[in-house]
């Protein structure tokens, strides 16, 4: 049975801050930091937005584009490292909000920035085995970076949702491969507000090792090379890492252009590869092949090979906004307003 993406939807908050504005507060050359990271600005959730509201908006956009009954959804998984509740699944609220409840299984996933793609893999298994007709996989985050930390220049918010099924597939999920090790490059202990990371240790032994092994592992197993793909998308903690890893795997700038959103919205963590994939599907044509590698600290990578089908021509993409349209409604904030929106100011009433 062929399994693939039946529909998709995205959501990115409206507010933005520049690295220059962040650097001003901490006595750093934010402009230079932004240039080094290839980040022009990052998205910020409004005070009334969180991973639940972002997931709901993305899932509703996904449902608008297809004629699937929400009652046919048998599984819903939300991958995030910023679930609003430590105990009380994000997915329960999302399932109610798209009217998929109560006859389905729901769980929240966590694997740093690749929890959303882990959800896609789980849905592939459930649909492929015939256990469910449709599964929903969401990757969304309102990520945290400690004030003054290097992460503050990139940690942003956004997410995308995918309906996985076996009928009316717009892109087949041809093969997936994962590469996982115990690598402590980035973590957040229970009860802690902000994550900690290993600085440069997050680069070569973590991001690059896992993305390269995930990508090469998938190419070996599919007998393909970078030339066989129209598009490629990689986890994007900044603009620099995915650009460099793409070159190492043999991909050109043209192949990664559509899915490279970090320069415009920052690192959306679990939302990063899902949003990049959504941006690619916004413009993909029948026959296009897509290569995707998500990375999650801790550490692991999920790689996917996909093929866009003829179905995309009759798919109602215009019933919901494209990623480009979503990220065009922008309002820049100063650091003080950003700090208030992110709850970084201790209020007297608390």
């Amino acid at each position, binding site marked *: 049975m062929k399994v693939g993406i039946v529909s998709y939807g995205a959501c990115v908050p409206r507010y933005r801050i520049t690295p220059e504005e962040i650097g001003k507060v901490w006595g750093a050359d934010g402009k230079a930091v932004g240039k080094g990271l290839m980040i022009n600005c990052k998205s910020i959730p409004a*005070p*009334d937005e969180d991973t*639940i509201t972002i997931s*709901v908006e993305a899932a509703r956009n996904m449902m608008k584009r297809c004629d699937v009954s929400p009652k046919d959804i048998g599984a819903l998984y939300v991958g995030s490292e910023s679930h*609003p509740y430590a105990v009380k699944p994000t997915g329960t609220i999302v399932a*109610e*909000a798209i009217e998929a409840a109560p006859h389905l299984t729901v769980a929240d996933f966590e694997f740093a920035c690749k929890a959303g793609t882990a959800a896609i893999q789980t849905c592939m298994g459930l649909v492929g085995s015939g256990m469910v007709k449709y599964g929903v996989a969401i990757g969304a985050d309102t990520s945290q970076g400690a004030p003054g930390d290097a992460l503050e220049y990139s940690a942003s918010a956004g997410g995308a949702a995918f309906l996985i099924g076996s009928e009316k597939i717009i892109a087949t999920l041809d093969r997936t491969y994962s590469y996982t090790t115990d690598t402590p490059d980035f973590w957040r202990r229970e009860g802690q507000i902000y994550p900690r990371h290993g600085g440069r240790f997050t680069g070569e032994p973590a991001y690059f090792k896992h993305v390269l092994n995930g990508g090469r592992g998938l190419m070996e197993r599919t007998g393909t090379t970078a030339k066989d793909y129209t598009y490629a998308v990689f986890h994007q903690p900044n603009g620099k890492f995915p650009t460099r890893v793409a070159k190492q795997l043999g991909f050109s700038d043209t192949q990664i252009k559509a899915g490279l959103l970090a320069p415009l919205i920052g690192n959306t963590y679990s939302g990063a590869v899902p949003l990049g994939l959504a941006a690619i599907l916004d413009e993909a044509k029948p026959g296009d092949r897509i290569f995707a590698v998500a990375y999650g600290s801790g550490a692991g990578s999920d790689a996917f090979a996909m093929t866009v089908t003829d179905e995309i021509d009759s798919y109602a993409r*215009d019933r919901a906004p494209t990623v480009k349209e979503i990220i065009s409604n922008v309002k820049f904030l100063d650091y003080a307003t950003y700090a208030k929106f992110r709850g970084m100011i201790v209020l007297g009433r608390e």
Partner: protein
Amino acid sequence: MATAPRFWRENPSRYNLVGIKCNSCGRHFFPPRSICPVCHRKSVGKIERVKLKGEGKIFSWTEVQEGPEELSSNRPYIYAMVEMEDGLRFTGQVIDCEPADLQIGTPVRAVLRKLSEEGPSGVIHYGYKFVLRKEKSP
């Protein structure tokens, strides 16, 4: 006092704008009620729960400078009466836009956002707010 059960009962309306239609007179009402306030006993057994479209136009709006404590981070914010396509009028916050973007008749649609939370350890309440709706060119 915990308000979780009270909000929980209203979740279908707050999340998905579930109201009622009186099949005696054909009118919609929101939030749901068990009797039509126009038809009274004639409506018994003829009340149907329906999901409203969630799209409408600004009927009137204002910019709120002093609001409840849970909205203090959003001040000033826009509050509007929205004429829904189902013929009902809703009140709610209009978000992700500036006052200059709004006029009487501006199309809007409902989205899910946080309404309030019962402190840092309490339940979070979600419900509808409105964002601008881009109308497709004919």
